[in-house]
């Protein structure tokens, strides 16, 4: 177990005034078998009355609207999360899980991914989790991490065809491979120690438990990851979503920090 402190902030400086904006932020870690959040703080500037709610996948969201003209929008979410209490998440109510058996959006496999899956020859591995791990180890060898080579619209098949991409691409391709192996799989957004950006990985369903696998780092998710949201693909759980009137040219600046602030005494 580890206790992690995280801070996630986004800042947008607009070239022109914004007369009205609406935002939805999915950046709140929830309690589950693997993690316990604490000391959560939400700050939004200019201040607006935000609401809290859950989306269709039970991801928690912060949303609101700002009608005062502004040329800068900043929000910051911070908190502490104890992680690494289990290797899995075991939801009480999992009526939704069958959704994650079906290819969707950015993770729909094309002929190259299908061909690749068949070449792995993992169909005889009977244990689901071992099969998933096996595919991850092999896939890690065959796909390269290269920043700024894909964008948020890149499909699994496109990324796979070029042979390199970022964590989002690792996750989408891995989900496609899991579907081909008949293993329900879902996209996870979150934060990880030692990185200045948000991260993405995958959860696979094995006997009613969702196990986290991080194909970008070739390892199971344990005590370095803070989970924020899940989806069929990246679009279902985008951390930031917003629309505005006005604004002109602008680029959001996102800052992420995750630091270890203490080990649990039960840990050796």
């Amino acid at each position, binding site marked *: 177990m580890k206790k992690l402190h995280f801070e996630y902030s986004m800042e947008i400086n607009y070239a022109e005034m914004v007369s009205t904006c609406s935002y939805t932020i999915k950046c709140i870690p929830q309690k589950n078998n693997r993690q316990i959040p604490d000391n959560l703080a939400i700050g939004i500037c200019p201040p607006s009355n935000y609401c809290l*709610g859950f989306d269709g*996948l039970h991801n928690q969201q912060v*949303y609101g609207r700002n009608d005062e003209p502004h040329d800068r929008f900043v929000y910051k979410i911070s908190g502490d999360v104890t992680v690494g209490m289990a290797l899995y998440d075991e939801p009480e109510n999992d009526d*939704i899980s*069958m959704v994650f058996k079906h290819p969707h959006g950015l993770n729909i496999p094309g002929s190259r991914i299908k061909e690749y899956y068949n070449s792995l020859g993992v169909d005889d591995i009977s244990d689901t989790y071992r099969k998933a791990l096996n595919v991850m180890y092999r896939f890690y060898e065959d796909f390269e991490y290269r920043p700024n080579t894909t964008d948020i619209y890149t499909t699994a098949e496109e990324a796979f065809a070029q042979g390199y991409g970022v964590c989002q691409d690792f996750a989408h391709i891995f989900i496609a491979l899991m579907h081909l192996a008949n293993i329900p799989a879902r996209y996870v957004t979150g934060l990880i120690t030692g990185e200045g950006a948000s991260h993405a990985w995958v959860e696979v369903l094995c006997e009613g438990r969702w196990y986290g696998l991080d194909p970008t780092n070739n390892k199971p998710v344990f005590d370095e990851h803070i989970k924020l949201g899940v989806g*069929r693909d990246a679009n279902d759980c985008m951390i930031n979503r917003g*629309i505005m009137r006005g604004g002109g040219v602008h680029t959001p600046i996102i800052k992420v920090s995750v630091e270890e602030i203490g080990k649990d005494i039960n840990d050796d």
Partner: protein
Amino acid sequence: MDRLKLLEHTDTVNELLARYGVKFGIYKNNTFHEQLFPFDAIPRVIEADEFDYLEKGLKQRVVALNLFLKDIYSKKQIVKDGVIPEDFIFASSGYMLECEGVTPVKDVYSHISGIDLVKGKDGTWYILEDNLRVPSGASYPMIARDLCRRSSPGTFADLKIEDNRNYAKLLRRTMDNVNVGGHSVILTPGRYNAAYFEHSYLAEQTGAHLVNGSELVVEDDKLYFITASGKKERVGVVYRRISDEYLDPMNFNPESLIGIPHIYDVFRKGNVALMNAPGNGVADDKGIYYFVPKMIKYYLGEDAILNNAPTYLPFYEEDYKYVLDNFDNLVLKDVAEAGGYGVVFGNKMTKQQKSDFLELLKNEPRRFIAQEVIDFQDLDIIDKGEQVPRKADLRAFVLMADEPLVWKSGLTRFSRNPDSFIVNSSQGGGFKDTWVLSR
């Protein structure tokens, strides 16, 4: 006889309809055309007994479809029990993940259902299609009846016909049933929408405000209507005539300019009713149509009163074979299309088209359904002064208020082309009034 007198007034009624702006807008090659929706004065007449039977069957069907929607967006028991394969739910474009776990006010999903039927030559009625998203068309027979009564009052004095001008009352009752407190509004995408006439007409008839997206705003998990003087007043129910995708750019298509940011979040919290509920498309998918009789059995323990047209799902091996063997006798429909698009007749394809289609079918069997071509009854219309038979269907309207209500009328659409079975108004068809006799 006075019925004939009515026919003499056909031109007058059509002129009045044009003057009232009863038009149908369509986009073709990226330009907007408004065309008149031609009215034919010979009504479809349905006897009281026959309509009683339809009414029972329609209520049963819509009740089951509502239970199905509730199930799909919560427990999914019908899928777990193997009655409907998962593929038909989760690969359907009408299934919306955002709607998972959301319970609409009083569990009503489809407040207004437009159920399309045809009557076979042997007198049997068949369901052709369920429309549970934003079915349109009720206003046309309403206003046509009104104009006919004015131009030929005697006709309606002699015959015992159910008055169909009560549709506005039924609609109002449906809105009031789910109103959580506040104004009732009808949300229109604007005057360039195909059914804009209907939006304004229904608003006028029900006393609801006709609004566009920019007149509604979300604040603190509630929905407000901005009045002409700039005041914000709470909205309790929205009869929205905008499709799911465009309703809320923060929850659905982010590019929508006609929607209201966060309106779905307000709905999710039960602070406003949306008619119809988003996500209904999963139940009126042509693939799901096949399963409706099974749904009725599953949820209600009853046999379906109204028949589906005999339908085959190439998804099932046995049906796939049947489709190959009987290709020329079947009509094939793309499950993702609507409005008469994506419909092809096996016997009207060229050799090349057929082999291309079979290839597509082989690769994507779930995408199509095949149906026996029902030889449905013709109805007479007046074409250039002559009485000629044409194919026609009936869109019946079922409203889910505190109880299911079937409107004792309906939109009868006909094909103006003697060789066509496709009656959709977007394909140039016309319409008739539907008279339900009261005895």
